[in-house]
Each structure stands twice: as structure tokens, then as C-alpha cells.
């Protein structure tokens, strides 16, 4: 350690103990020479509408249809959004409703979603049923004039996904958002600009993985509900690991790189869980774009090593995204980027990195930053917050428009809304959700059929 480094460590008063206690992957990456990429902190003078949701809009009465594990996660998140009162919940299995009532004590409980949709006070619905049950619920909700948030994937078949996306695009008067939650994450939007600016050089390839040791089985109270509860495990109802999990990571990479796969080749099988499941517990898929860029994806339920991340490999740098953090690892021959001159530099062990954070001048700020990370809104929070905000925006705009103009003139209404919604919150559209679903479902099909699938243009049309 040279003197400078020594002083840096001494000044920051970081002990080995507190370093290890507070160390996160962020710290580790910094030590390896990663440049942490973060969205800019807001200055105090700016209004808080982007960071604080408390005054972002007027409340929109929400309902959650499908109160399984993920539905309850959604309820928990909605309970933290002041403008998203949950007025109704729906599930066809009473124990799920009972559990959900604890999270939404003021909500009316329904076992039939159609009855819930009849309630006028319900303005927006979040559809968190199993993927294969999305279609009827979403289309009926749109017909009932409700704003709809449909979890990703849109459906378990391309045909169903297409029907949903079509209905969503035709429903001009309401807000539709697909559940690609990463598309609402401000950190991702920061990275998007960064990557598209060419900071990493020419994109060569990308890779993503999701590793977790969990069986994906849910405890079923009785044999009758076994298949219904474990719909993810059976081909008839499941879009597979890549459809349920990989869709988010693959969509993120394709979105960042504006890449359109022309083919996908998948592999996989049930390698570890020897129960009656039909869906692979370990998979790999390679997407190839027209430009030759490849995106490798792999996932397993059998091992948790290295968890989940996405990496974009450019000719000048690699950019790794883990959760809501990201780092840039520059090549030695990469040209100097302008912002590096102004950014604070740190030296850790043999490598040096530049931290893009106002308070990150010392190693201690890395450790403090790591603890701050947990308080950042999750992508799900940001996605639901955006959904409620946009639903309010569209709902009130349409209502106001109808008070003065002919609402039947759809073309004029669309034009009006396109102007009114210029400042809408970042959110995935029906088209985003549809395309991501097609790519994921075709990858799943490729894994099942053990063959390469060429993406047909007509599959990409809504």
C-alpha cells in the first residue's frame, strides 16, 4: 500500500471489522476496479415529485386480483404508496384472501373478479393471477373501464398476450401498464442513457443469470389444489423459468441495447428436483440479434452461487447491473470519458475506480452508501407508483376532456392525451410487455423443444 492509500484508509477510519460488517457487493466491485454508476441525487431545490410520492397525484382506488405470494408482495408495496388505497382484493381461494386482508384491512374481499369489476369505486386493478389466467381478467377489466397493471409475462401463450396487448391499445381512455417493473426504475433509466451514449464502446455481447436454491413448489393444502397452487411447474400453465423470471432481465438488456433477436436457442431440463414437475429447473438460452450480438441467459433453481445480474460487454468497458446498482469496468485502452475528469477517484488494492456519487470521496462513503441502498424504492414500488400516477393523470384528463368535447372522437382524444401525458411517469407499455413476452415464450419453447427458433416478424405484430 502506498502512502496515499494508507492515508486514505487511516483518514476514513475504516477498520477491518466495520469494513467487513458493512461490505456489500458494491464495495467488492469497487475494490475490483468497478466504476459505480448511479442516478444523480436530487438537489434540495428541486420539487420532490420525482422522489417523494406523497404529493404526486390524487389517490386512485386500487384492487388486487390474485392474492398469492406475489399478489401479497404487491399489496405490501401498495400500502406504502399514499395515493394507492386498496379498496378491493380478489382470490378464488379463501385462505389467500384471509392473509391478504391483513395487508389491506379496508379492502372488500371478492372470490369472483367479475363482481369486483362491477364496483364503481375501483378505478385500477393490478392483475397478479397466474400468467395463464391473465387474459380474461385483463380484457374484462379494460372493458369495465378500469386502469390495468398486468404482471409480466402478459400471458403464457403468444395468442393470449396478443389479445391482451390489442385490448390495451384499443382502450384509449384508461391506463395500461405491463409489469416489466425495471422499466420504471430510475437507476435503469440513468444506465440506459449512459449505455446508449456509447460509453462502453461497441456492444459485443451480453449475459444475464438468475441463480437461486429454491424448489419453486408451494405447499398445497390438499391434493386437489396441488396443480393449481404449483402452476409454475407444469407445461400447460407455466411459461418456465425464462418466462417468469428471465423475461425481466432479457427485456432490460434488449431495451438498453435496442436489440431485436432474430433467433433463440434454448437448453435445459429437470436436473435436480425429481418430483412430478415438467418445467426445467435449469435452463440456458442464447438470443442472437440481426447485428450478430448475442445475449446469453441462464437460470437455475439448484444453486444460488453468484445470484443474479446482467452484464453488457462493450469494446471499451463492461457494465454490470446487480439489483439497483451498476458498475463500469473499463478496458485499459478505452478512451477517457469526459465525466471521469470531474468524478472522484479512489484507489482500492491494485485497481482504481471512479464513484459517481456526490458523497463518495472516501472509502467510508462506500460503506455508508451500501446501507443507504436498502432504503431506495424497489423497482416494484416505482412501477406501481408510476402506474397509480399515470392512472390518475389519464383518468382525470379523460374526465376533463369529456366534460367539454366529444369523447367518441377517439382520434382527437388520442391526440389530446399524447400532449397531456408528455410528463407521465416511466412505465412499460402494452407493446413493451408484449414483445418481452414473445421473446421469453419463444425461448421457453426452444428450451422445451430443444431446437433453435427463428423469430417470425408476424409474432411481433400486435
Amino acid at each position, binding site marked *: 500500500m502506498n502512502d496515499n492509500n494508507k492515508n486514505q484508509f487511516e483518514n476514513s477510519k475504516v477498520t477491518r471489522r466495520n469494513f467487513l460488517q458493512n461490505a456489500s457487493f458494491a464495495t467488492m466491485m469497487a475494490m475490483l476496479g468497478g466504476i459505480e454508476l448511479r442516478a444523480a441525487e436530487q438537489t434540495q*431545490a428541486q*420539487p420532490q415529485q420525482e422522489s417523494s410520492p406523497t404529493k404526486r397525484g390524487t389517490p386512485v382506488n386500487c384492487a388486487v386480483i390474485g392474492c398469492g405470494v406475489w399478489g401479497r408482495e404487491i399489496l405490501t408495496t401498495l400500502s406504502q404508496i399514499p395515493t394507492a388505497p386498496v379498496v378491493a382484493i380478489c382470490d378464488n381461494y379463501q385462505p389467500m384472501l384471509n392473509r391478504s386482508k391483513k395487508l389491506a384491512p379496508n379492502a372488500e374481499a371478492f372470490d369472483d373478479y367479475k363482481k369486483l369489476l362491477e364496483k364503481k369505486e375501483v378505478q385500477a386493478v393490478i392483475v397478479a393471477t397466474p400468467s395463464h389466467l391473465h387474459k380474461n381478467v385483463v380484457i374484462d377489466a379494460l372493458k369495465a373501464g378500469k386502469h390495468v397493471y398486468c404482471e409480466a409475462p402478459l400471458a403464457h401463450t403468444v395468442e393470449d398476450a396478443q389479445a391482451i396487448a390489442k385490448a390495451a391499445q384499443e382502450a384509449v381512455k384508461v391506463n395500461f401498464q405491463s409489469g416489466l417493473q425495471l422499466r420504471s426504475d430510475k437507476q435503469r433509466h440513468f444506465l440506459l442513457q449512459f449505455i446508449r451514449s456509447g460509453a462502453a464502446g461497441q456492444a459485443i455481447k451480453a449475459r444475464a443469470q438468475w441463480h437461486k436454491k429454491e424448489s419453486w413448489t408451494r405447499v398445497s393444502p390438499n391434493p386437489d389444489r396441488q396443480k393449481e397452487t404449483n402452476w409454475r411447474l407444469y407445461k400447460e400453465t407455466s411459461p418456465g423459468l425464462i418466462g417468469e423470471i428471465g423475461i425481466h432481465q432479457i427485456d432490460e438488456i434488449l431495451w438498453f441495447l435496442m436489440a431485436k433477436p432474430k433467433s433463440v436457442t434454448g437448453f435445459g431440463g429437470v436436473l435436480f428436483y425429481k418430483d412430478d414437475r415438467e418445467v426445467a429447473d435449469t435452463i440456458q438460452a442464447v438470443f442472437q440479434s440481426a447485428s450478430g450480438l448475442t445475449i446469453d441467459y441462464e437460470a437455475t433453481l439448484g444453486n444460488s452461487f453468484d445470484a443474479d445480474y446482467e452484464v453488457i460487454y462493450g469494446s471499451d468497458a463492461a457494465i454490470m447491473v446487480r439489483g439497483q446498482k451498476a458498475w463500469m469496468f473499463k478496458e485499459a485502452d478505452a478512451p477517457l470519458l469526459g465525466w471521469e475528469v470531474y468524478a472522484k477517484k479512489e484507489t482500492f488494492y491494485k485497481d482504481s475506480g471512479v464513484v459517481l456519487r456526490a458523497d463518495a470521496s472516501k472509502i467510508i462513503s462506500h460503506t455508508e452508501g451500501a446501507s443507504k441502498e436498502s432504503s431506495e424504492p424497489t423497482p416494484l414500488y416505482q412501477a406501481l407508483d408510476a402506474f397509480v400516477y399515470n392512472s390518475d393523470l389519464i383518468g*382525470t384528463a379523460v374526465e376533463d376532456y369529456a366534460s367539454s368535447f366529444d369523447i367518441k372522437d377517439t382520434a382527437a382524444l388520442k391526440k389530446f392525451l399524447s400532449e397531456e401525458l408528455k410528463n407521465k411517469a416511466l412505465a412499460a407499455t402494452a407493446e413493451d410487455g408484449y414483445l418481452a413476452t414473445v421473446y421469453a415464450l419463444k425461448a421457453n419453447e426452444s428450451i422445451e423443444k430443444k431446437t433453435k427458433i427463428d423469430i417470425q416478424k408476424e409474432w411481433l405484430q400486435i
Partner: protein
Amino acid sequence: MKTTIKIIALAVALTVTGLNAQEFVRFSPQPQGCKVRMEGTSTIHDWYAESAIIGGSVELDKNLPLDPAVKLPTGKINAKVYAKIPSRSLKSSSGRAMDVIMYEYMDVKQYPTIEYRLLEMDLPSIPARGNPILKTVGELVVHGVTNKITMDVGFERIAKDKIKFYLPVPITLKMTDFKINPPNPNIGGVGIKTGDEVKVTFEWVLSLSTEEQK
């Protein structure tokens, strides 16, 4: 006989006059041609709020020439004007958070609409260039409070079936005249004071109602 003719002539004249006095052609606002903008100040920055919705209707004396090529007569114009703006449709330059604050100060739940009714419209002269300027007096209702306002309103006959009213020079209104306290929110620990005065402009394009065109 002469007396009979005189009575008939008088009756016809009265009927025609009556019709002239009562008959109007009705115009309806067009979604793509409405814009109202108010500009204000605050202790941190100037701001504006806009709406693209101005509902209501305009009825003009049937005898008023609508053809842009025909010269307008000067003097009083028989017209009925009613305009309404959903208060909530005003969107501020400071984002949705400030919109919500603005709506609170305007009590939009209790007073959801800004309304205007014309009392008088006069065309004193025809300018050598540009559109004629109408002298108007009307009642403006904001926050449930009615104030009489005078405006010099530009009038453009875009086509025989399309007209436009606009303010070439902004009018100045005071929030306190409508019993609205200028907002002074605390955002991000910064106390903001909004100025009382706002400068208002609008553009309002209307088309001959379809019933009139039949």
C-alpha cells in the same frame, strides 16, 4: 286597404327585426385549438400553468359576416359566450406535485370549474392590419367568486365555419380577488411564496356546430 298594407309591412318588419335580434349561430370549441396559460412568480422561480381544455360555446349574431373576406361592422355585437375550464386540467410547469398543491389552494373539489360569461361585446374599430380587437366585459368565476373583468380579445375568422378568440396581450388577475391565498408550500425543506398576480392568455378555436351546418 292602405292601412292593411301598412299593418302587414309593420308586422313583417317587426318579425324580421325580432328574428335578427334573437337568431344566433352557434360555435363549439375544438379539442386541438384550446389553450389557456397563466404565468406567475414565486420566491424561487417563475412558473406557469396551462390547460388545453376550454369548453362551453359561442353564439354570434346570425348577421355577423363570417367570411374572412367580408369587412366586419363596427359597434355592439350580439353574442352569447360561455366558457368553462376544468380547474384540475391546469397543469403547472413545476410538475404534478405542484399541481396537487395548486388544486388544494383552488379547492377544486368544491369548485371544479372556472367559468366565464360574456356580458358585452363591442367592436369599436377595424384595424388597418391584423385581426380586429373586441372590447369585452364579462363575469369570471374562479374558486366560487365572481368578478367582472374587461378584456381586449382578438377575433379571427379562420374560415366561414371556424373562428378564434385570443388574448393578444395578457390580462392580469389577482388570486386574492378570487379569495385564493397565493400558495406557499414547503417543498424539500424550502419554503416557497407565490406571487399574488398571474398573467393570463388564451386561444380558443371554435367551429360552427354540426347542427348549424346541416
